[in-house]
């Protein structure tokens, strides 16, 4: 259970560092953000929702059945798009209108 940060996309704005509930993200020497303790990630995806540059992706550890797919989000007004990219680069998108309650 953890995240991967793309050092090419990260601009080092630090917004993700402010929201990680475990204080796990820090500034690397080249000013981009890195996850210091990947095994300590809870999987809350707070950092992913905060990142406007799609630099952070979330994945399931192999020990809990992960198969290499990556999850990230993109925001459009009240819509939150959740995007799953498979290892073969195929994508699935689920869009949630945050003005609507859950059905269950």
């Amino acid at each position, binding site marked *: 259970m953890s995240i991967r940060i793309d050092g090419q996309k990260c601009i080092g704005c630090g917004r993700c560092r402010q929201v990680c509930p475990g204080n796990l993200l820090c500034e690397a020497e080249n000013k981009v953000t890195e996850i210091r303790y990947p095994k300590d990630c809870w999987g809350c995806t707070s950092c992913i929702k905060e990142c406007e540059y799609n630099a952070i992706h979330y994945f399931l550890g192999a020990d809990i059945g992960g198969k290499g797919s990556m999850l990230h989000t993109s925001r459009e007004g009240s819509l939150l798009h959740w995007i799953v990219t498979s290892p073969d680069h195929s994508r699935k998108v689920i869009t949630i209108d945050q003005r609507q309650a859950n*059905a269950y």
Partner: protein
Amino acid sequence: MRLAVNRLKTDILIIGGGTAGCFAAITIAEQGNGKVVIAEKAGIRRSGCLAAGVNALNAYIVPGRTPETYLDYVKNDSEGLIRDDLVFTIAQRLNAVTKKMENMGLVIQKNAKGEYVSRGTRNIKINGENMKPLLADAVAKQENITVLNRVNMIDYIIKDAKVIGAYGFSLDTNTFYVITAKAVICTTGGAAGLYRPNNPGFSRHKMWYSPFNTGAGYAMGIRAGAEMTTFEMRFIALRCKDTIAPTGTISQGLGAPQVNNVGENYERQYGTKTAIRLYSTILQNKTGKGPCYLQTAGITDEQVNELYRAYLNMAPAQTLRWLENGKGPGNEDVEIEGTEPYIVGGHTGSGYWVDTSRATTIEGLYAAGDVAGGSPQKYVTGCFAEGEIAALAAIEYIRDKKCQLPSEQAVQEKLIEVNYFLGDKAALYTAEDIEEAMQKTMDDYAGGIASGYTFNEKKLQVAKNRIKELMELSKQLTAQDLHQLLHIYEVLDRLYVCKVLIHHLEARKETRWHSFQENADYPDKDDENWLVFVNSRLENGEVKMILRDLVKRDDHYEH
């Protein structure tokens, strides 16, 4: 590296900016009664239990129900051992705090008449993904609230047997905080990471309760000599296998039954009390009828898509798992398992022993939310309600009080203690080593997953001795930076909670809540002798046990 002192003064200090803490702060600011400081070890925008969001509001008085019926439900579910006064005062406020949260921007589903749509008899439907950002925005609007993000509090400041503030340190600068206040409200949440988790490897933090809730509030109270209650009523959640995502969305929301490996609905045999839904699953596995599932295969595509959305709003791992497997809950049933045990007063009765106003047994200190005991099934709205009650009591308390300052000697002694960990000593073990040893001990000898949640007197003695040894070893830990210093204090706090927990497990000589408290030496419930609270207090390093009677609904309990 050495820390340097920074002194701050406020009227009310709130430790922990989660659900209860933020709500307490907003309450005080709205009443216009003085300055508030929230000290939060992460950032309040996403800290605490609600970082990923929450699926529904599970404590609400729906039409046709009353606070009295809510009290009856909690009492029945907890086998009679609750503080009626605490549960009832929460129940009376549930709907008002929900309305207040809606005014802050929470989306709640309504019908054509504008009434909230209920899910079952106590729940309402929401979009709770952004609960914490909404609370953080509401806090930011209040001029009288100062938020100290990334500051970890470690101990209360005590003077003349009163709490007059707390010590802590920054995670960003080499600062040792001495924060003095007329009153302190503890809202740090409960404790995860005491036992070896379901996924001990790479995904060790893929747990139900926040792995960053390390029992700091309990530990600070224990060290200060506050009375604690009902630690033996551990909470063990029934969760989706591997992802440890909640099951209520499927079982209560969708109405899916629990079935064993031959498709038998075993819930009917045992009943649906919270502990029993877990216990029955453990029994099925013991008798070779596992794995167990929530029966979802065959649900409609529409239902599947709604489940995908619901889980993204609180536990995204589960939706990711379904999508990357190429098989969703419509194709196959959802496997379930029990988690490692947690200590969490929002679900069970563990925490500070408080009076009806939420004052702890130490003057000047109040508690609310998961850290406060005696009132199970608080959930999110109950934590709001309790935050509000504690805030109002603290406002009343500080009316004629002045800030007191600790002696310079007391401050320097505490600073030396913290700086000692930052010294250049050669340490054999790391905080992580100690934590793993603690989790293994608790798992094997204090009723963890490996032992089917069952313990006995002999095993508890082994656990007791090993935790004592680990507490000694932890004195030699060293930190190279502030994050490592945080890890040291987290493992110290967990060890204190384990120490007290073991004494509580030992003290209750019956089995009141299957799996939560499964005492192999005393396998039956004994109402005649044990319908009493098991409380404790640390005195000169020893855990002293105290038995206390039930409190009636309309009593105003005072210490």
